[in-house]
């Protein structure tokens, strides 16, 4: 009855008044949200618009945020620059696919395999292992950059894909998130599979992994983001091994004349991780619900 009555009202009155929510409070918060939202979004709006601006609009005074005569000149400029590069451009794309592909799959596999015993088993050393992973979240990679370089040279994997891919397998955040998420799988599920005589690896691949799909999607997205941003500087010295990101920066580095192509490059670099996030947003949020630190 109440529902039918509500539907007769115009849409702005249709919403029920929520508990402890005043109109004034709503207004203030939404205005704050609006201002901050514009501040956050403005640079991204600029990136999108710049990519479509013809050269005279890029150097207009006073500068305009929005494009007036959108053109695809910048895209074709970039295409020309790409096809005139010394190493075929498809090679850079292939490198990026190999690095992000292997790095992501390897990380998800390694981290999930290690997270399963940490979440569901009791064994000597469990607490210690998890604590050093948590500790590793507390400093950034800058701390380890120099010794890492020496270790990679010492292992003889410098200037190969492995130099970028192998360290990526063992990021701390992935294991942490996966372990927290796996803890909510009911023990009875694993127990019943064990009674049916399934081995641990079978349980892992048949029972655990299908149940933590949101978590491994999240790990994959996070890993993709960090590998996508990797220019391979320091480790990948041969031109044939460099990833796309590096090649794109080389183009931007060409000075004022390449400002148009540079704007497109920025759009591409930003758009790809954002697109992946949009596709997997609900899975990522689901994973993050378990990310809290319980002690």
């Amino acid at each position, binding site marked *: 009855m109440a529902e039918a009555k509500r539907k007769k009202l115009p849409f702005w009155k249709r919403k029920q008044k929520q*508990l*402890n*929510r*005043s109109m004034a409070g*709503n207004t203030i918060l*939404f205005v704050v*949200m609006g201002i*901050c939202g514009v501040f956050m*979004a403005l*640079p*991204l709006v*600029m990136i999108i618009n*710049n990519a479509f601006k013809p050269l005279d609009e890029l150097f*207009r005074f*006073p*500068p305009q*945020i929005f494009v007036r005569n959108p053109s695809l000149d910048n895209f074709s400029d970039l295409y020309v620059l790409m096809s005139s590069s010394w190493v075929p451009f498809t090679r850079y794309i292939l490198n990026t696919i190999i690095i992000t592909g292997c790095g992501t799959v390897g990380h998800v*596999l390694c981290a999930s395999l*290690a997270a399963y015993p940490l979440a569901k088993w009791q*064994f*000597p050393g469990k607490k210690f*292992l998890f604590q050093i992973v948590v*500790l590793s*979240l*507390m*400093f*950034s990679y*800058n*701390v*380890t*950059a*120099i010794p890492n370089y*020496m*270790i990679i040279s010492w292992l003889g994997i410098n200037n190969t894909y492995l130099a970028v891919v*192998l*360290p990526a*397998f*063992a990021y*701390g*955040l992935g*294991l942490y998130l996966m372990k927290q998420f796996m803890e909510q799988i009911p023990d009875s599920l694993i127990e019943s599979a064990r009674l049916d005589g399934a081995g*641990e*690896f079978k349980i892992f691949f048949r029972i655990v992994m299908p149940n933590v799909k949101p978590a491994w999607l999240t790990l994959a997205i*996070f890993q993709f*983001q960090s590998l996508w*941003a990797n220019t391979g500087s320091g480790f990948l010295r041969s031109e044939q091994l460099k990833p796309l990101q590096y090649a794109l*920066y080389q183009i931007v580095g060409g000075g004022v004349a390449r400002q148009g192509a540079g704007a497109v490059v920025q759009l591409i*670099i*930003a*758009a790809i*991780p954002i697109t992946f*996030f*949009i596709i997997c*947003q*609900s899975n990522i*949020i689901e994973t*993050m*619900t378990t*990310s*809290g630190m319980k002690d």
Partner: protein
Amino acid sequence: MQKKTKWQYLKQDLHRCRTCYVMLAPYFILFFIFTVLPVLASIVIGFTDFNMLEPPNFVGWSNYIKLILEDDVFKKAFKNTIIFAVITGPLSYIMCFLFAWIINEFHGKLRAFLTLIFYAPSISGNAFMVWSIIISGDRYGYLNGWLMKWAFTYAPIQWMQTEKYVLPILIVVQLWLSLGTGFLTFIAGLQTVDKSLFEAGAMDGIKNRWQELWYITLPSMKPQLMFGAVMQITQSFAVADISINLAGNPSVNYAGATIVTHLMDYGSGTRYEMGYACAIATILFGLMVGTNQIIQKLLRRVGE
């Protein structure tokens, strides 16, 4: 029958769990090689004069003494890093929570859209380079363009070449970038707060959303708040990329120098003074982990 010793129990446990050690092995071998070993190596190399060419000599504390007493750039970098951490750390933490809390009032597509807008800057790689157009020193920069259009100034301001503007601008850009993993955790955490608590709270006399936030929402989100703190603190100490790309390295009169840029200058830059760079890295490690531990202790105590 002989009673089993502690050692035998451990051996039995190790044998029983051999499958799980096999599962742990790939990740943790790599983790030890690329995370644990480098931290230990960094501490050790910090006490030597290693330069990649000659075999290292043990030099005791001299790298640290030189850092603290003689290196004026390090002093400036240290000061800047602390300023960054003290301002962007707490502020970005509050921003993460506040925005997540407001976004939580929305539903469906609008909520997803707002989450995207606020989260996007932190994942869009080097998108912050667009700020170099905004703050460009000539009159084609957006900021100069607007200031001149509205007659606040008549000549373009050299934003990144003027010492007093460098740090504030970098802080603004850092804040713009800082709604990352912590923000997502809060968004997710707010959705899990038990709805019946709000109704029960209303019965007990909670009158508005602020009381609701303080007495119900915050206490039930403690695990997420702790995790978010780790993410934001670590991030706020590691500011470097934006400084190098927007202000240059070295920046004008080292106004944008941070511990990380100083570290890169000595380590991966042109100097190859690895011993000295590792001493800097060790100090950075101590700062990050120390601050994180203190904040964790404080947060754990909240609401107890």
